[in-house]
């Protein structure tokens, strides 16, 4: 369970996240939508404990995300925006490092590393420095790091950005297959993705939640039945007001 209450984040005069509250339960795949600069990434950075909120509270699996937030961080797997990885390391070394930090040991460690390498098809590049890999591979290395410890909560900031259509499909299948007993929060620009993987969609504009419903309900708002139109209607109406 992720519980967010009255979350506010200000950078100087700019209010990036303006008093938002929502909860996400187990088994839900929450799609986080919104125009660039709407506050999606900032919210995710606060949920994962990277940025401290200006005010409000966040709980992940009933552990508060404040200060060190070690217990909460142990429950979360996080793919930051742009899937940053240590470029001089190979995916193999990188996963060993993450396994160390996540305190995976013995048979379980070996098995988890093998599983994510297989799930994200990293076999071919496992001993090549991450710097030399294509964008698609880098993204998948980032994803493998996030799911390595089989976390209860997965926070993925634009997980399919830079992947080709086949890879997108596979990553979506992967997210779906993992979502049964987990909480997954993904942010995306790709609206078809919401329909494809999410059980719930939150649209955020100017730091506020402007819609919170199932993808189906969202689609039924528009006479054309196209997600793009719904998105434009909701977010531009908000921008004008």
């Amino acid at each position, binding site marked *: 369970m992720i519980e967010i209450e009255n979350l506010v984040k200000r950078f100087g005069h700019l209010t990036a996240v303006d008093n938002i509250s929502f909860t996400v339960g187990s088994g839900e795949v929450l799609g986080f939508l919104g125009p660039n600069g709407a506050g999606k990434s900032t919210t995710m*950075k606060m949920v994962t404990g*990277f940025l401290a909120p200006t005010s409000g509270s966040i709980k992940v699996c009933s552990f508060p995300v404040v200060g060190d937030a070690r217990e909460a*961080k142990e429950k979360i797997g*996080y793919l*930051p925006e742009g899937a*940053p*990885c240590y470029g001089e390391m190979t995916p193999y070394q990188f996963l060993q490092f993450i396994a160390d*930090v996540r305190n995976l040991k013995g048979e379980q460690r070996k098995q988890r590393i093998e599983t994510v390498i297989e799930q994200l098809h990293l076999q071919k590049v496992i001993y090549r420095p991450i710097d030399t890999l294509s964008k698609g591979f880098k993204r998948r290395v980032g994803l493998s*790091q996030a799911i390595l410890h089989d976390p209860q909560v997965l926070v993925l900031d634009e997980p399919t950005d830079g992947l080709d259509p086949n890879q997108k499909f596979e990553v979506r299948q992967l997210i779906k297959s993992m979502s049964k007993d987990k909480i997954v929060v993904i942010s995306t620009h790709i609206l078809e993705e919401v329909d494809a993987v999410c059980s719930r969609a939150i649209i955020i504009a100017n730091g506020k939640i402007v819609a919170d419903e199932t993808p189906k309900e969202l689609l039924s708002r528009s006479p054309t039945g196209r997600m793009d139109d719904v998105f434009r209607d909701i977010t531009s109406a908000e921008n004008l007001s």
Partner: protein
Amino acid sequence: MNMRNVGIIFKRELESYFATPVAYVFIVIFLVLSAALTFHMGNFYERGQADLVPFFGFHPWLYLFLIPAISMRLWAEERKSGTIELLLTLPITMLEAVIGKFLAAWLFAGIALFLTFPIWITVNYLGDPDNGVIFTAYIGSLLMAGGFLAIGACISATTKNQVIAFIVSVVICFAFLLSGFSIVLDFFRGWAPQSVVDAISSLSFLTHYTALSKGVIDIRDVIYFVTLIGFWLYANAVVIEMKKGN
């Protein structure tokens, strides 16, 4: 603080030094320069004395330019590549990350320093030096390297640009060196009270290092370097906390 986590960060950081040619280039340059300075500018042979005074005498100046080259990437690179977001959302604390990274850089500097041992063999071959003094001087040099590194690590956290981190670190380290120089102290001596002059002088790396490099272990000199490192690492953590969102 969990030492296990410090160890994990330390190991990753140290490996990353050796994953690129940077480490080897650094070590070679350090060894070549320290030898060249000792033999040519330090008149190692002409002095006719079996000690390493010229060798250790050049360390503050070598470190001034070489240590910021080790420290500049510590945090600037994490911030530039975005891996800082990954690092600080893992279940480790800020302090563990700061200390783990610092220790890796310090050990790296220590390895470079250790590899100067042929000069120690040379001086023992040529004469009969006081090895206790030499050992103390090595400890002093290592402590001073730690001081430079802690400053460099903190400065590295203020920017995403490694070149800026390098230059600013050199300038600040230079100030810490210079404050022990008699020229600088004379300037203050003219008008400032003695206590101020003493305070400025006591902040200097040189003041504390010189005693150690002559084989005098004064616990105050050791405390100075340890406190200095502690202070700058604390500042390092504060700076990251402030700047990580940018």
